[in-house]
């Protein structure tokens, strides 16, 4: 998608690809909600929707083009399973809080999965939402942090220190689990721990921005630069190796 669109934000989607894949196809039920708070990784959720059959291959081809529903950030009210447009950081966890509260009031067993970036934890509203979720014990909300340690213009620990993130989230009242966000076995273990929790869960998913894009893996460039032709082939090969390696261990 990014290659066809000649668009940036490739690294942001590669960072979160396994997390979304795992949550959608190995954890959440059809009625559950998934909120991609880091809307700049929109291609990851569009790919998920294509896999589900909600978006067609033709839809996917329109990504980033004029007259498309598939904007660079998830749009308003146009796509099933995207209840809210995201892209302005720091909204998603509050959306999840509200959806979680609604389910609690309606006494349903629906879950809400919210994937945030780590950079957007700078936003005060993220902490407001964290306080709210913990206070109301919205254990139907699962918060997954894509902890790739890079944000818009620097490393998270250089821009505005987040560590010790696990202790901070614990102090806010979360059941904190640390996982390898690129490893399905690690994510499965995190899921099993989350299911046993009586309080809301936050999973810090350690990831690498631009995962599989060896030239820019772990670099800020992967946030902004579009792929060149030769990069594309390398990435595809890397993803395939990675995928096969994981599948063989499952």
């Amino acid at each position, binding site marked *: 998608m990014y290659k066809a669109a000649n668009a940036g934000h490739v690294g942001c989607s590669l960072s979160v690809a396994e997390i979304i894949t795992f949550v959608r196809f190995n954890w959440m039920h059809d009625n559950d909600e998934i909120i991609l708070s880091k809307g700049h990784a929109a291609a990851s959720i569009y790919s998920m929707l294509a896999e589900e059959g909600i978006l067609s291959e033709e839809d996917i081809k329109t990504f980033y083009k004029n007259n498309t529903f598939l904007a660079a950030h998830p749009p*308003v*009210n146009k796509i099933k399973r995207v*209840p*809210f*447009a995201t892209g*302005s950081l*720091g*909204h998603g966890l*509050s*959306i*999840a*809080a*509200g*959806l979680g*509260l*609604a*389910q609690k*009031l*309606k006494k349903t067993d629906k879950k809400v999965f919210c994937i945030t970036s780590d950079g957007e934890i700078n936003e*005060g*509203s993220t902490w*407001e*939402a964290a*306080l*709210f979720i913990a*206070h*109301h014990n919205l254990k139907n909300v699962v918060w997954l942090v894509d902890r790739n340690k890079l944000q818009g213009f620097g490393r998270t620990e250089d821009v505005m220190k987040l560590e010790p993130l696990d202790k901070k989230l614990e102090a806010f009242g979360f059941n904190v689990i640390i996982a390898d966000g690129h490893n399905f076995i690690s994510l499965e273990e995190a899921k099993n721990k989350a299911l046993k929790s009586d309080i809301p869960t936050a999973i810090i998913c350690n990831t690498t921005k631009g995962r599989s894009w060896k030239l820019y893996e772990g670099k800020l460039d992967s946030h902004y630069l579009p792929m060149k032709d030769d990069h594309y082939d390398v990435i595809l090969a890397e993803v395939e190796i990675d995928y096969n390696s994981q599948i063989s261990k499952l």
Partner: protein
Amino acid sequence: MRVEFADSMIKFADSHPQMVFITGDLGYMALEKVQQKLGEKFINAGVAEQNMVTVGAALAHEGFIPWLYSISPFVTLRPYEQIRNDACLHDLPVKLVGNGGGYGYGIMGATHHNIEDIGALRLLPNMRVYVPFTASDVEQSIEQMLADPHPNYLRLNQGAKIKYEVAPFTQWRKIKSGTKGTVVGTGPVVENICNLDVAADLEIWVVSIFPINGVPAGLMESINATQKLITIEEHSGECGLRETLSYHIMNHLHGPVKMLALSANGYPSGKYGDQKFHQAENNLGGEGLKQQLESFL
């Protein structure tokens, strides 16, 4: 209007079980009965208005009608992007309630005033702003907001007390007829003109829902007949009634019309006082208003 607001919440709670009330940690000595009535559907979201608005939008997405309450600037300007992105862009029935619009919080100072709220909110997509004039407008406006499937903002203040009979709440109301000039105002501040002797022969209209999408024929007739238009609002004229009304009458004027625009211009003296003090130093009340009108007419 806070008492009428709380009474209305209680009154409509049974007929609208989808109502949820969320306060931004305000309501002492005012909302206790609402809390009692709504039980688990009354939530104190703490001093965290950004989260409160988005939580409200998500509740609305799930079929609830959330009423989000705070002092006016805290529920409008602080979470402005949340209102735009999460409530308005998605056209969800989130009901914002701001107590003390204008200079309503008087001596509490500039941080607690709101003279930009109507302008800031009326330009957001799908948003409708409700500005009750009298205390009895409050229940009627809430009833209309409950039936309005769009995001709304309710601007509460001290209800106007005037000697004229006021029609039931609607967007445009003619308060009285007159031939010397035409007054169009919004909110309880209009009472300051209604109660002056100089108003005896003025035609007075109140507009209570924004945005406006046109002007009643009777009002245009009056403006064209008197050729003197006075607007009054406890709000900035920029982006306020002054500007939006000017635009909507422009293509319907039969000839030149003189205009006196009375609006809130902040803090001319840099000093603080009660609501009447701030109205007076902005020529929205007291001697200043009287002199402006006499000089204009």
